[in-house]
């Protein structure tokens, strides 16, 4: 029983980390109809931000997150203006490969600038553990978990309770009509994209003390995040959160039962199955899968 609880706790914690990435990715898709293949690269940049501030100035990641996140936000603004905005409404090939190109670019720019060396960061939280009812929870992961859920909640409230949030939803549902409501559609795109990638960057900072940092670290996450957002229904924020937690638990459970490698296979198989049987995802709206571009 203890073991089962521990497996679930592990899954939930890691799922919370995924959630912060997945919420942003799903939001970008929902509003811009762009699958942001470069999403996890912003997490990688966030991790490097945390590393350099820590290595050069001894800044704790829990402080540097307030510096790095705005920088990544600005980077998001630039990327939106230069790349993403130009691909919106274009053929699938543009929409898919523009951000895929960005991902290759950022990954290798990091490789060229900072080499493949593996780096790591520590904070007071590294290695500290709470024990709740015999279940051990890493402090660092619990912090990131809490931030992820708070972010998702804040985003959800923003989208459904504020006028501007509803404006962004309006853009997601019909660009032309939204423009006719006086909504600055380009600005909505920019804000959506930048907020989402800034969240990925923040997540990078927060997990820097948990994972090691190297240029391809984003790649270790991105496919899992895709699985999550499709499972949750592309475009659905609550769906992404629930699916992230679910995937976390499935992975940790399947990994324990079948071994990591075959557990991995199992969950990709589930992913394919969901795509085939219920492409709108578990919580998505029917028809979303045929929106395409």
């Amino acid at each position: 029983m203890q073991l089962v609880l521990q497996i679930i706790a592990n899954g939930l914690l890691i799922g919370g980390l995924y959630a912060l990435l997945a919420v942003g990715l799903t939001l970008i898709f929902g509003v811009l109809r762009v699958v942001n293949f470069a999403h996890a690269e912003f997490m990688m940049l966030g991790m490097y931000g945390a590393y350099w501030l820590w290595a050069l100035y001894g800044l704790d990641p829990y402080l540097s997150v307030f510096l790095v996140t705005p920088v990544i936000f600005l980077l998001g603004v630039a990327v939106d203006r230069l790349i993403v905005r130009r691909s919106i409404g274009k053929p699938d090939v543009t929409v898919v490969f523009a951000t895929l190109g960005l991902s290759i670019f950022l990954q290798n720019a990091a490789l060229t600038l900072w080499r493949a060396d593996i780096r790591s960061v520590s904070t007071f939280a590294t290695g500290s553990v709470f024990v709740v009812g015999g279940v051990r929870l890493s402090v660092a992961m619990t912090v990131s978990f809490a931030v992820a859920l708070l972010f998702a909640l804040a985003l959800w409230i923003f989208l459904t309770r504020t006028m501007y949030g509803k404006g962004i939803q309006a853009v997601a549902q019909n660009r032309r009509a939204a423009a006719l409501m006086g909504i600055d559609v380009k600005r909505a795109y920019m804000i959506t994209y930048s907020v989402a990638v800034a969240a990925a960057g923040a997540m990078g900072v927060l997990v820097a003390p948990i994972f090691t940092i190297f240029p391809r670290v984003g790649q270790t996450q991105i496919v899992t995040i895709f699985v999550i957002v499709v499972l949750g229904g592309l475009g659905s924020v609550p769906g992404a959160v629930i699916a992230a937690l679910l995937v976390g638990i499935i992975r940790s459970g399947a990994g324990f039962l079948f071994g990591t490698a075959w557990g991995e296979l199992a969950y990709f198989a589930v992913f394919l199955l969901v795509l085939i049987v219920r492409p709108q995802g578990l919580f998505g709206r029917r028809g979303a899968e045929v929106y395409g571009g």
Partner: protein
Amino acid sequence: MIALHEASITVEEGETVTVLGANAAGKTTLLNGISGLVPLRHGTILFNGESIENLPAHERVARGLIQVPEGRLVFPFMSVEDNLRLGAFTPRARVHLKSSLERVYDLFPRLPERKAQLAGSLSGGEQQMLALGRGLMALPRLLMLDEPSLGLAPLLVQEVMDRVARIRAEGVTVLIVEQNVNQTLKFADRGYVLENGWVALSGSAAELGASDEVRKAYLGM
């Protein structure tokens, strides 16, 4: 009040003006050009004396230049009331949100009954009412209607036209594009006939309705 050179059109305050023309004559393009959804190749648009052709769409909306687009384009996964609220997105309209909402609910009594329902689940006629109401929420100085009766059952066509006439009666300036030429000419003040992007003919509604050319080309008589 408004001018689009090459296809030059003027709408004075308080007027109802209709644009007629065969398909592909450029009527929708004209409205979208005024709204800023499509860029103008050249020409100027003056709105209340201000040149606005270089402004983005949302800033034209902020100045009260409102379009109710062809095909209604309501936000399907949002409630009726949220759709209406979004109509008053601009700061100018937002301060009057409450009174506007009352006015719209008053004008379209079927909408308050369904205010919590998702707009996508409304029938076509109800959606058109919603789209009109949403347009009114923006407190238009000029309301542009693109084919408000398109795809509607005859019963609803009458209802929509009736509402448009009422909106007009409330003093809203209206520019309307409509294939239902007969009905439109009944309440319009003036009209333009567009051919291949050029204004081929213009005059009062009565003149146009009586013109042989118009009758032959557009009224099927």
